[in-house]
């Protein structure tokens, strides 16, 4: 028997917030109540429209004054402002536009600036992996199109590692912008809903330190485990907020499958 379905249930259905059991009951209700079904459809469409209209903001370059505000107390005197700007530059966050630190300057790129590869990857992971409805731009159902598209944009023949043996399936991917050009992010998910992302971009020219890091490395960036390496001028980073031992296995698999196997060139 279907319990009475409330207005709240209908909203929760549209927002994907119901338990599996309740969702089935509401589905049955909607099948028998076309007017309600129409409204729910409309609400889901509204959510879609909001994402279509505003998700691009996530991938915009971060204005430098906001990056600075996120990092420290606002400077209140010119002396402090200068000191803050110097400290900021010295922190290595930005090696860009030194001497012209204006408030409206933009850190270009947002998720892949002069920040080290691992840090960019960790931030991109933290930004996109919690997205419930639109974690990826192109879903894995269109995997071939996804890989071709991102390969073309990033400028190398990309390959998505297969993590099926470790319980993770490809969810899809998205294109990010970066200083050294476009960045590809692939997202994987396991049965428990845990997500890892693979971040691939051209290694930043002139960033000797980054280019020298050709070996397999591990860091923890703000709670995000990151394994990263450089291969043929491209930086790869696998990020996840899962146990280090677990992501290690994934990273080993990715490294084993990807390194040295990229197409010619």
């Amino acid at each position, binding site marked *: 028997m279907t319990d009475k379905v409330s207005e*709240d249930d209908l909203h929760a259905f549209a927002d994907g917030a119901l338990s599996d059991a309740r969702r089935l009951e509401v589905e049955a209700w909607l099948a028998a109540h076309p007017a309600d079904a129409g409204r729910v459809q*409309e609400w889901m469409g*509204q959510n879609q429209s*909001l994402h279509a*209209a505003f998700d691009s903001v996530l991938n915009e370059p*971060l204005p430098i*004054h*906001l*990056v600075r505000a996120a990092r420290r107390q606002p400077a209140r005197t010119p002396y402090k402002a200068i000191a803050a700007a110097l400290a900021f530059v010295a922190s290595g966050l930005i090696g860009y536009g030194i001497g012209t630190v204006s408030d409206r300057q933009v850190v270009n790129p947002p998720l892949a600036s002069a920040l080290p590869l691992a840090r960019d990857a960790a931030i991109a992971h933290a930004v996109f992996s919690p997205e419930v409805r639109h974690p990826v731009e192109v879903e894995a159902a269109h995997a071939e199109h996804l890989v071709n598209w991102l390969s073309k944009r990033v400028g190398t023949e990309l390959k998505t590692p297969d993590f099926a043996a470790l319980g993770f399936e490809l969810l899809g991917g998205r294109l990010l912008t970066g200083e050294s050009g476009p960045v590809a992010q692939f997202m994987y998910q396991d049965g428990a809903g845990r997500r890892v992302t693979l971040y691939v971009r051209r290694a930043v020219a002139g960033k000797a330190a980054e280019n020298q890091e050709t070996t397999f490395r591990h860091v923890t960036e703000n709670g995000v485990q990151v394994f990263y390496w450089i291969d043929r001028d491209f930086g790869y980073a696998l990020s996840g907020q899962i146990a280090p031992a677990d992501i290690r296995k994934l990273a080993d698999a990715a490294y084993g499958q990807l390194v040295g196997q990229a197409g010619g060139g």
Partner: protein
Amino acid sequence: MRARPDLIEHLPRLRRYARALTGDVTRADDLVQDTLERALAKLDLWQAGTDLRAWLFTLMHNLFLNQIRSRRPPDSALDEALEIPVSGGQMEALGARDIHAALARLPEQQREVMLLVGLEQFGYEEAAQVLGVPVGTVMSRLSRARERMRQMLAGEPVVQLKVVK
């Protein structure tokens, strides 16, 4: 001493929400900047282990509320029944399915709920905490917001509860 959390990873989402909320790039980023400054000043009050993102959105909500109050005449209450004042000419339906215009015409309190739930994917309980209202209030605002939005996007005339002179 505990490590200070990094706010940078929250910037893209705060910016997305603020952009949709204010409908203006500059106003949105000003709101984000104010939020960051307040967050850094009050970071000691944030309880480690709780959801930093929800806490940041709470701060942004309070700042947004202050902005609205300061722009409104003091006698205009911020109650549930308050609808955006529109002139007769603006009451005609939106012809285009323009989500931006429709959002701008939602009362702020409904717009906040619509965006926290529909765009930022907060649960109803979380949204209630961010806004400092009971979850029942979240549901009723959500319901009204979606119905109003539906009417606007469908090109139906929106019933005005109250036209401010």
